[in-house]
């Protein structure tokens, strides 16, 4: 490769990289994308929904052209107990179909290829099957990338290479990911004919559901930790995932594939995936907890976008934050190119563009949720068994006969021995004590 200096090199052709390259190519800059897979997306795993709130701004007619699976019209949050499930009120919103930017299930191997192709069509150059191993440095700032197939020079490098970002680590902006700040997802894709999916989940063609299951897993040492499971519908397959932060897996001691197998066995989930055939097993690491320090996102001649910059939301959705941060990085690069200056001080305008995309606020929320736990996370993950037992008592009440409601030991003593014989001045105080004791005791029973 000759000593031609490109305007910008984007490392990674995922949503962040492709969004940045698309924007830069449209602005008429000379941009090259590096992808380590043979085609974009084949190293990537979709672990949730593609939120299109940025995509529709980048590609207006994406709904006609993008390889989308199903539009999410229903999401249900479920609490998973050992012998049953409690679904919280499901949000079924059929108007979502007419939203300007609803959520979709996608296969990243299809979607990322399409999205990167959009960037190529706009004028970007895509180099696949090439791993960027290091950065080139000149005068203390990044001046290109090094690969096995040769070096390539550029005025600025955008690192969009995922959570294990080579660019972030080689440029010294970040060290290896910390176990508490990343979350591991294992997922399996299960083939099931489209008609059966639509019948089983009460859907029209093109509509899809997500079911979130929150449940505790008890480890070999007796430690109980929350693991997250999701089931969602693709066009003619289902995806079942198990997710937990690495810290949780480490403390609990149960591997995620065992949790996934246990979830497959769970009576409720087993009924939903009955007859589906295992197609593929996947694993992927995602950031969790948002961006800590905004100054870690840019250095001399380097910008980080997407998972590499640890952009995420408090619900762990990274698709739109990736695209939005990619677009913000592209605007930063464009401005730096106009000024001809790629120092850290000039690239600091990245913060302003991120703020305009609404990402600073999102990261703050994500950080808060990570530090203190969002109310949703707390209620759903800390006490699933309790919530389930309360609901069971509530809905099984008509099955229990009134006399069967037992008293505490003091209550039994009072009702069988004291109450029939004792005079009023004994009955009243002992009766009050027995009543209080029984209430306390029943409340204790409820948690068992």
């Amino acid at each position, binding site marked *: 490769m000759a000593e031609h200096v490109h305007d910008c090199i984007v490392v990674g052709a995922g949503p962040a990289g492709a969004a940045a390259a698309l924007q830069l190519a449209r602005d008429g800059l000379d941009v090259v994308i590096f992808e*380590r*897979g*043979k085609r974009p*997306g*084949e*190293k*990537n*795993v*979709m672990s949730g929904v593609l939120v299109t709130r940025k995509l529709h701004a980048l590609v207006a007619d994406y709904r006609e052209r993008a390889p989308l699976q199903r539009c999410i019209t229903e999401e249900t949050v479920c609490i998973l107990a050992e012998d049953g499930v409690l679904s919280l009120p499901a949000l079924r919103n059929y108007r979502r179909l007419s939203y300007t930017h609803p959520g979709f299930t996608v*296969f*990243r*191997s299809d979607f990322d290829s399409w999205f990167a192709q959009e960037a190529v069509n706009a004028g970007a150059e895509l180099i*696949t*099957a*090439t*791993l960027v*191993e290091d950065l080139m440095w000149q005068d203390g700032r990044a001046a290109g990338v090094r*690969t*096995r*197939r040769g070096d390539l020079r550029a005025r600025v490098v955008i690192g969009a290479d995922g*959570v*294990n970002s*080579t660019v972030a680590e080689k440029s010294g902006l970040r060290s*290896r*990911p*910390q*176990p508490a700040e*990343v979350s*591991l997802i*294992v997922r*399996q*894709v299960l083939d099931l004919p489209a008609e059966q999916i639509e019948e089983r989940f009460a859907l029209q063609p093109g509509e899809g559901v997500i079911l979130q299951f929150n449940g505790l897993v008890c480890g070999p040492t007796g430690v109980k930790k929350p693991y997250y499971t999701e089931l969602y519908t693709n066009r003619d*397959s289902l995806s079942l995932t198990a997710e937990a932060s*690495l810290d949780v*897996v*480490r403390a609990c*001691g*149960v*591997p*995620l*594939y*065992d949790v*996934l*197998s*246990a979830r*497959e*066995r769970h009576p409720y989930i*087993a009924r939903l*995936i*009955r*007859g*589906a055939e*295992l*197609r*593929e*097993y*996947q*694993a*992927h*690491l995602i950031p969790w907890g948002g961006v800590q320090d905004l100054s870690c996102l840019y250095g001399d001649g380097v910008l980080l976008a997407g998972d590499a910059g640890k952009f995420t939301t408090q619900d762990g959705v990274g698709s739109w934050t990736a695209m939005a941060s990619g677009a913000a990085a592209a605007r930063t690069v464009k401005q730096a190119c106009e000024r001809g200056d790629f120092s850290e001080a000039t690239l600091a305008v990245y913060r302003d563009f991120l703020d305009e995309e609404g990402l600073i606020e999102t990261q703050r929320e994500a950080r808060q949720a990570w530090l203190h736990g969002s109310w949703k996370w707390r209620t759903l993950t800390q006490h699933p068994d309790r919530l389930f037992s309360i609901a069971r008592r509530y809905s099984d009440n008509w099955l229990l006969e009134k006399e069967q409601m037992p008293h505490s030991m003091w209550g039994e003593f009072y009702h069988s021995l004291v109450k029939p014989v004792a005079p009023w001045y004994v009955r009243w105080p002992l009766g009050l004590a027995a009543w209080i004791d029984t209430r306390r005791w029943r409340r204790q029973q409820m948690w068992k």
Partner: protein
Amino acid sequence: METRLDAKLATLSSKPDPEPHIVVQTELCLACEERPCTIVCPADLYWWGNGQMVHNCEGCLECGSCRAVCPHGAISWRYPCGQYGVRYRRG
């Protein structure tokens, strides 16, 4: 319909990098009591056998959990070079 890990892994095609992409300094593992890599790896590539750490580079899903979780920084892990490694058809 529960599937075991080996059945799950059998659904994947992967071409190992001729130059190993995971290098473990096994002498550091001797002092490690927790060995979280044996728990977190989603392809079960790490195991403790005969008093030493054994690992396999083939069949890696390229998530990088082992490197993130290792308390002694004993695992040097990189992505397999272009064309090698796992290929998801339904990512």
